[in-house]
């Protein structure tokens, strides 16, 4: 079960990976550095969407402020496609602006998490996230081999 991390800040990538490690989440993490890379991952030539099954990540962690194509656009495109419509997508962002939250939920994210400054709190958030979405949550994908 793979995790797709869509994040342009390499520091944040490092810290997120470290938080997974600390929480003993050993899943493979694929990093997309901007919105276009994320879309390519799914819909590019021989992309994950066309291959389906294990090629699709079990969880997408999506930043909002992204170069080229922003997070909300990525979310819209993933939700518009039948093959990725049901993927668990968690918005992981610095922003707590109401407009971002409203847009996130309006376009169908599963959770909206604001990255805390305190790394310990951040690590805790990532741990709970992994535990919830990768272990506790029953998604149609895991049950029916979508």
């Amino acid at each position, binding site marked *: 079960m793979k995790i797709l991390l869509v994040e342009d*800040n390499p*520091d*944040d990538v*490092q*810290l997120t990976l*470290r938080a997974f490690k600390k929480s003993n989440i050993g899943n493979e993490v694929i990093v997309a550095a901007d919105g276009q890379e994320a879309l390519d991952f799914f819909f590019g030539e021989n992309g994950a969407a066309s291959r389906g099954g294990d090629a699709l990540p079990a969880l997408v962690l999506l930043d909002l*402020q992204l170069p080229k194509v922003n997070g909300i656009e990525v979310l819209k495109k993933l939700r518009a496609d039948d093959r990725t419509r049901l993927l668990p997508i968690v918005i992981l*962002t*610095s*922003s*707590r*602006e109401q407009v971002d939250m409203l847009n996130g939920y309006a376009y169908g994210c599963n959770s909206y998490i604001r*990255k*805390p*400054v*305190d*790394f*310990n709190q*951040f690590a805790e958030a990532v741990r709970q996230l992994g535990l919830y979405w990768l272990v506790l949550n029953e998604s149609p994908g895991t049950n029916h081999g979508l």
Partner: protein
Amino acid sequence: MSDDARDLERLEQENQALRKRIADLESGRSAPEEESTSSWKLIVHEAPVCIAKVALDKRFLSSNKEFQVFLGYTEEELCLKTISEITHPEDTGIGMAEIMAVVKGEIKTSRVTKRYVRKDGGIVWGEVSINVIRNESGQPMYLLAFILDVSERRKVEEMTRLSAERMKALLHLNQLTSATLQEIADFALEEAVRLTRSSLGYLAFLSEDESVLTMHSWSRSAMAECAIIDKPIVYPVASTGLWGEAVRQRRPVLTNDYAAANPLKKGCPEGHVLMTRHMNVPVFDGNRIVIVAGVGNKSEDYGDEDVQQLTLLMEGMWLLLERKRAEDAVRTLNAELEHRVLERTLELEASTKELEAFSYSVSHDLRAPLRTIDGFSLALLEDCADGIDDDGKDYLRRIRAATQRMGLLIDDMLRLSRISRAEMVIEKVNLSELAWSVVHDLEKTQPGRRVRIEIAKGLEDRADPKLMRIALENLLGNAWKFTGRRAEAAIEFGATTDEGKRTYFVRDNGAGFDMAYVDKLFTPFQRLHSMQEYPGTGIGLGTVARILHRHGGEVWAEGQVDHGATFHFRLQR
């Protein structure tokens, strides 16, 4: 009974008495002829009514004293005149048909009112009744004319009529609310010409320092007659001829003999309307002359009543112009204000958008590096602990503490800006219940603390419930925090009413503060206590002040070091 009717009745009675007397004379029923004739003559001569005997060809045969006084002729002079010759040229046709009818016996008496021209040229009004005297065989012998001098009455009637017309004109003026200045001035001028029975008129405005007259309008008749092509518009008062006298003498000036030599007259330019009579008046606003209005070429002399007509009409016009000017000024001001409000609103909207963009970037861009600093400081502490000594670890911990504090400051700053931007929903709020709910939350954070809480019952007011909750959270939260070191902590929330205004208060017996710094309390990020003693970002009271200001209210504080603090607030000023 009206004067008119009374006069008529008197005339009729006198008429009847005389007719009876004539009948008596003719029937020879009276006393001796001689005596009766002389007494008849006396009566006729002294009667307070004009009596004349007129031949059927309208020549005067004889007249009494009153008649001679009425027209200014002697008996002899009158006997050389006919009725037509003493009648005003415009009125010669009046009553002629009636006299014919009387002579023919179709009617008994002819009664008309007409003008006569006196010997001195003056015009008088007479109410005439004419009977025919017949001989025994019924042949008309001569006419008997009775004339009552009604000049005074006519004058009063004319004045009443002109006053009524002036009132109508003024009323009409006042209804010209949507007319232009030119239309109003033109209307008033035409009315002034008509009401003074003049044939031309003009209207000029006087400059503020009363030195320059600016011709505003000429009556249509003057325009039609005037042959001067480029009429001057501006006239300095000092060098203006006769018509400037109204300003120089500050009173109406009447010139009924325009042709006569007058040292004030400068002479008229070629093509100027021929003037026979002239009158003009200054129109005052307080002590200042604002308008000079003039009329000319009335067929009779100008008199006081013309001055009155012209003055009252022009004063009425000036009042209307002033009112219009005031209204226009208000309208212009309103439009300007509206425009300015619109401009400000747009500016405000732009700055609000800017603020939103700023908040957004603060919340995202400033927090990201903080997270990196904190995250990697921790990574150093955890992953490279062996290579760092205790001092180094202390430094790293300080870096992390400062980073996290900065994160809190940014969050508080954003919260404050959100409170300023939040849409307000004013409704009835039970502040007592709200305060209890806040206190219960506080008790949950520190269940071990013993604090005596006193909250007045039933404090209801109109406010935004969400914002008021935040305000009470901050005020009660402060009280809770600053009584943290008291063994017998006490917090009170209540209200007092003074002159109908309700003032709420939150009182505690905590650490208090020095009144010298009271002004700094409500400034965001200003703190009066050290972080070690009482942690916090210093945003709480700034938030409270902003919430109350948004409600149109205010907040102030009282305190003493170590003796607690009281925060008062009002929802309306």
